[in-house]
């Protein structure tokens, strides 16, 4: 007869069953289907889909996605760190909590609603565009929200608050004694940041960069709603191949998705590795 502890353990596993079922149905099975489909041509295994995934147009889509992700991740890391530091050093608790809540909301505000928000503010007939025009500043035609630069602004809108949420705990983990010890040893504020704070924060910042990179790389709805097929991104190409706008080619879409999955996996693995670095500042 099994002991009470063993029965309890069995019950605990049973309680996790819904999670496993969900994970199997919506995570593992789709990925397995993706793998199978991308390596299949006709009735046999083949790498032909991957060969077609690296045509000049597809390579350009990867290049654009990688560049857009890198730039918006970098802007998010730099801006988010500065704003995050401003938040944690704000004297007013109300200001700290309000800004953190705002970051929480805006970090999750993406997709079509975000694109629409930018169209009605910075579009060719957007509110801000018209106000600026009335003030004598013409954004168009030099600037277009329906372009890569417009997409960059839209992505930073959710990248920056996400970075704030990621970096605030790390910034709070910077102990006051480290700053005082550095100052006591003769360091100026700049030397403290350059030789103590940033090296301690480095794993957190790099890890956050990778998460932001993956976040931007996988974004689709915002890009599609804002720029349609004008900007050649991997996610836009995958959607076009699945929907059959130019050609219906689910197998090629799966191959592209699998390569994208590889990029994301590298980012997440890098984040996890950096997150476990022993000197990482922790709250």
């Amino acid at each position, binding site marked *: 007869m099994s002991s009470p502890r063993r029965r309890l353990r069995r019950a605990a596993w049973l309680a996790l069953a819904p999670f496993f079922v969900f994970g199997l149905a919506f995570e593992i099975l789709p990925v397995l289907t993706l793998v199978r489909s991308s390596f299949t041509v006709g009735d046999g295994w083949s790498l032909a889909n991957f060969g077609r995934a690296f045509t000049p147009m597809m390579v350009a889509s990867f290049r654009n996605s990688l560049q857009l992700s890198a730039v918006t991740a970098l802007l998010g890391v730099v801006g988010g760190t500065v704003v995050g530091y401003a938040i944690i050093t704000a004297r007013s608790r109300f200001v700290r909590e309000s800004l953190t809540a705002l970051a929480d909301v805006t970090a999750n505000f993406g997709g079509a609603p975000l694109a629409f928000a930018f169209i009605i503010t910075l579009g060719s007939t957007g509110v801000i565009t018209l106000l600026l025009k009335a003030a004598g500043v013409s954004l168009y035609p030099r600037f277009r929200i329906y372009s890569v630069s417009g997409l960059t602004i839209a992505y930073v809108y959710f990248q920056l608050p996400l970075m704030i949420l990621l970096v605030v705990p790390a910034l709070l983990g910077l102990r006051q*004694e480290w700053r*005082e010890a550095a100052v006591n*040893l*003769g*360091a100026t504020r700049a030397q403290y940041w350059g030789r103590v704070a940033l090296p*301690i924060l*480095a794993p957190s910042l790099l890890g956050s960069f990778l998460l932001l990179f993956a976040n931007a790389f996988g974004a689709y709805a915002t890009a599609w709603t804002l720029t349609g097929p004008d900007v050649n991104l991997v996610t836009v190409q995958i959607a076009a191949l699945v929907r059959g706008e130019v050609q219906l080619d689910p197998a090629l879409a799966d191959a592209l998705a699998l390569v994208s999955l590889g990029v994301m996996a590298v980012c997440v693995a890098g984040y996890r590795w950096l997150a476990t670095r022993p*000197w990482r500042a922790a709250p």
Partner: protein
Amino acid sequence: MLLPLSAVRCASHGERVGYVELKGLNKSFAGKPAVRDFRLSMEQGEFVSLLGPSGCGKSTTLRMIAGFEEPDSGEVWLGDQNVLDLPAHRRGMGMVFQSYALFPHLTAWGNVAFGLRIAGRAAGEIRRRVPELLELVGLREVAGQYPRQLSGGQQQRVALARALAIEPRVLLLDEPLSALDAVVRVTLREEIRRIQSALGITTLYVTHDQEEALAISDRVVVMRDGWVEQVGTPEAVYAEPATRFVASFIGKMNQLSAVVESVREGRVRWGEHRLAVPPAATAGLADGQAVLVLVRPEAIGVAPADAEGPTGENRLPATVELVTFLGPVTRLSLEVRGRQVLADVTTGDRGRFQRGMPVQLAFPAAACRVQADEPAGGPR
């Protein structure tokens, strides 16, 4: 052991003079005074401890000297310079923190070298001095290890070496041993004193541990509620507490509420008993004035009632209420006509006393200190 002191320059061996003068320092937080009119003069090479309970203002005082807190008023003189005008990074004071505050991304070697690199010292000099400093604190073998790989005691030694590396004019230590276990604490406090004596560096040490302060200091500053209660050598603070608070905070002290019977003859009445005290101790008091007679437990001799009595002008019958083993001594809680008196006997004599046993106690007049019995808090 190991003191490559020839290579470890410090203030006392160089041309600089580290003489500290703290004049009327005051500091309040949100209108609540933390330090009040703090005055202290430290000789070069002196080891002074700030001693007091939590929240008495000792760490705030240290942080004002280091430049981490700005005093509301007062001056901090180092040699012939008022350093309050200098930012913290230019005051030339080495500080050791309670939580060590070692930089986690640097090895022990990197931590010790930090201040030298900031000062722009030549690479060759850094390569020579860092091992010397690590050897000074007995940690040369852990140079390549990160703080997380070191024990608490080792981390604090590295922190000490790091503070000494910049050749500070004054060394400030903020409860450096409070996070360590008892055995390491005793070893390390002796190590700190040894290094301080060897380098002759002027040192201000904050602690709430009276045993620690008495053991390693040239002088002790006892603080309470932001005020300085007493400044003196450990012996003076222990034997001649200036206030009721000092008497109760430093070691155990019997505080007998009495009335002066004769100032001229040095005599007080404690309940039904007359006690002889040094006539000088009642100077300035008046006959009939309420006083506290202070007697250390170790100054009181105890013997069984039927045995030959202990010596001392003040002899009283008592009953043993409690026998408490404290290691080398055993503390007897004695009842003298409804009043409690503590007396320490050597543990070798412990077997002579049992609970409920009638005894006689005695203590010399010279062991008594007399203070006017003022409301709790006493004079300032």
